[in-house]
């Protein structure tokens, strides 16, 4: 029923090539909806560029970097391994973040969460409105490129809001488990909203997939 948006690139490698490496290459996940499905909140052109160009580039560059890293490991070249760290963090983070992001959005999204997630939000932020304000503020306040996050702090058993710079992955850099991410890199909104990041942030609440965020939350608590 739902036709999914696919790219020409980034498909799974044919099984025959699997023997070449001891690891599976990363591939670009399909979007669970069409490029135009999130309109008018995020337009089709943004979704297509964002998925097919930006996310695809992170996937390709992650694969290339991991190949080089494998070689450096095999040679015992620690200097080379260290030199590859920024590229691993950037492209790996980009792949992780965007993979989460596509599932956090839905053409049938919006409204408020229900049940346990809503209870946790009320408990940890006071109310859904206060949580929304906090997440918006964190996302607007990112200087340069980055992400706003709703995360789960396993040690404290609490929800927490955070912002990460560039493509730094939430869990890898802060330990918080990512539940909902808001991409505030300019490529995420500029074609439609120009420099008006707050307008983009207001609009995105209409397409948040609370089912997915709840799934992620329930998985954390196990």
């Amino acid at each position, binding site marked *: 029923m739902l036709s999914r948006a696919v790219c020409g690139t980034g498909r799974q490698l044919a099984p025959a090539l699997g023997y070449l490496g001891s690891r599976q290459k990363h591939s670009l996940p399909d979007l669970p909806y069409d490029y135009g499905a999130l309109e008018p909140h995020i337009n089709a052109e943004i979704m297509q*560029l964002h998925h097919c*160009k*930006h996310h695809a*580039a992170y996937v390709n560059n992650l694969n290339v970097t991991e190949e080089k890293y494998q070689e450096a490991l095999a040679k015992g070249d620690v200097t080379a391994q260290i030199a590859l760290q*920024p590229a691993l963090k*950037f492209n790996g983070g980009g792949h992780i973040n965007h993979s989460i992001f596509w599932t956090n959005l839905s053409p049938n999204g919006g409204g408020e969460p229900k049940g346990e997630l809503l209870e946790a939000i009320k408990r940890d932020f006071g109310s859904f409105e206060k949580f929304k304000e906090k997440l918006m503020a964190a996302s607007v306040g990112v*200087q*340069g*490129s*980055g992400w706003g996050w709703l995360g789960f702090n396993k040690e404290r058993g609490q929800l927490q809001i955070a912002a990460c*710079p*560039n*493509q730094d992955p939430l869990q890898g850099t802060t330990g918080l488990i990512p539940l909902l991410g808001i991409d505030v*890199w*300019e*490529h995420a909104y*500029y*074609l439609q909203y*120009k*420099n008006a990041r707050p307008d983009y942030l207001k609009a995105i609440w209409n397409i948040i997939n609370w089912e997915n965020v709840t799934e992620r939350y329930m998985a954390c608590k196990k």
Partner: protein
Amino acid sequence: LTFYLFIYLFIIIILFYFFFFFDLLAQLYNHNFFWLGIKENGGGKPYGEIKKKIEETFFSFKNFKNQFTQEALSHFGSGWIWLILKNNKLKIYQGHDDQTPLKGAIGHPILTLDIWEHAYYVDYRNARSDYIKEWFNKINWDFANYNLSVSLEGQC
């Protein structure tokens, strides 16, 4: 008492400037510098002192273009790519987000290229390399020569 209050407020404002306003002021400087470094009929090959300096450091203009392009393409995230003068030599400096070579005396700025996505996304979408190519066609070499003469004067 009012004198000490005044001093106290003055210090608070200075701290505020550095921690909260720096990014705004830096971006103001960066953008001004950027506009001055480009012009409608710009581009072409460098001439005068900047030509000499480029050939001294990079051996050729072509080589400089390649290196600058590589630095600009490989920068992760938002930033500015600067051509600076340090110890009488030209260097390429990658500034992340709003970083400028003025802070920390990294070098004297000669030219800068804005690689925040907002600088190119509407015209070039994700194709940063096309934007960089076009920037070379717009460089104001007079501005580069001016900055060079000002920075060389300051050197002993």
